[in-house]
């Protein structure tokens, strides 16, 4: 989905609030929130793609105003409801107040039928697709050209795995893009490498 989470290249943000050697947690509840999602993954209640997508489905206003661990907790709670472990009413009764959850999901999809294999050095173009459900293609590479510089072992296909849709595992390719291709005349000169699932790519004709 073209969600608020897809931040790469968005303008208007400010200086990074850099705190070298800052602790990963700032409150006891953050440690609990982090552990509980880990428990849910380990217990097989949800998988990582479902979890990521549940966070992405938060309303933009909530997503941008929530802290990292609040987003994590909201994703987890949303999935507990969707998987029938609890109702929203019961969650709110337990919490003693409103418990905002993420919005409903659109359907997922399986692998592209015509996805070719690539090798290091191949020139590729990212398919010009707008996917309603979960997708791990950041918008800034949509339709852009790059070069394959690496290949990973096969992984579950996120667009399917986040939605309980059957699909084959597929490799991701590390694709190298020039910033001049991604944002012509509007970026620092550099290369950006993105791990791109095979189904998102086509050969450059």
């Amino acid at each position, binding site marked *: 989905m073209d969600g608020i989470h897809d931040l*790469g290249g968005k303008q208007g943000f400010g200086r990074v609030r850099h705190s070298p050697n*800052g602790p990963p947690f700032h409150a006891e509840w953050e440690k609990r929130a*982090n552990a509980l999602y880990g428990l849910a993954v380990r217990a097989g209640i949800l998988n990582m793609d479902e979890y990521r997508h549940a966070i992405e489905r938060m309303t933009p206003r909530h997503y941008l105003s929530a802290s990292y661990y609040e987003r994590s907790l909201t994703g987890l709670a949303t999935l507990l409801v969707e998987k029938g472990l609890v109702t929203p009413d019961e969650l709110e009764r337990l919490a003693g107040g409103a418990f905002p959850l993420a919005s409903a999901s659109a359907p997922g999809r399986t692998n592209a039928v015509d996805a070719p294999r690539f090798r290091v050095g191949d020139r590729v173009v990212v398919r010009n697709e707008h996917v309603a459900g979960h997708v791990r293609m*950041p918008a800034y590479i949509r339709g852009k050209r790059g070069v394959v510089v690496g290949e*990973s072992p096969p992984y579950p296909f996120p667009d399917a795995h986040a939605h309980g849709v059957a699909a084959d595992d597929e490799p991701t390719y590390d694709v190298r893009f020039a910033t001049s291709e991604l944002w012509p005349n509007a970026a620092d000169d550099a*290369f950006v490498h993105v*791990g791109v699932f095979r189904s998102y790519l086509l050969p450059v004709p």
Partner: protein
Amino acid sequence: MSDPQPSVAPIERRVDAVEAVLATHGHRPSEFVVEATKTADERWVPENGARIVARAWTDPAYRARLLANGKAAAAELGFELPRHHRHLVFLEDTPDVHNVICCTLCSCTAFTIIGLPPDWYKDFDYRARVVRESRTVLKEMGLDLPPEVEIRVWDTTADTRYVVLPLRPRGTDGWSEERLASLVTKDAMIGVARIAAPARSS
């Protein structure tokens, strides 16, 4: 008129609620929280990655294995990845190339190797800007790279994980692996810092 919206429960109470749901379904969350927090505090620490980097600086054969297969080379030193991280890539800095990692979509990192990601790594400013304005962002964070150095940004959009293998600082000839490891920071393995040459001691 509709009823006024009830106010949002405090975040601690929302965590309590989720924990209660998991307890009702027999998952023993309070025990898991203690165990997971201990694991994060004690086992997922940047000292792991620092040991790998120091070994790569001192042992050329290990460096070659690390660059060929990061996961296997990490395992040689006893460091494991979660099951869903099937591939670990170490990115070699050279005098002419500087690597930096990010996750524009969320917060993905090799957290068992470099520790849990810092706040700023997960924050919107870094995620939005580092892919597009890498040189500017690095400069703002204190790393002013010479213009001839090529910057390579790595966006962690899949479950392949990246760690930067920084340049060994000058002035460390003959140092032990352990002493070298003490120089290596989480920031350096993310790529927002280079490791400074140590101050000369008398």
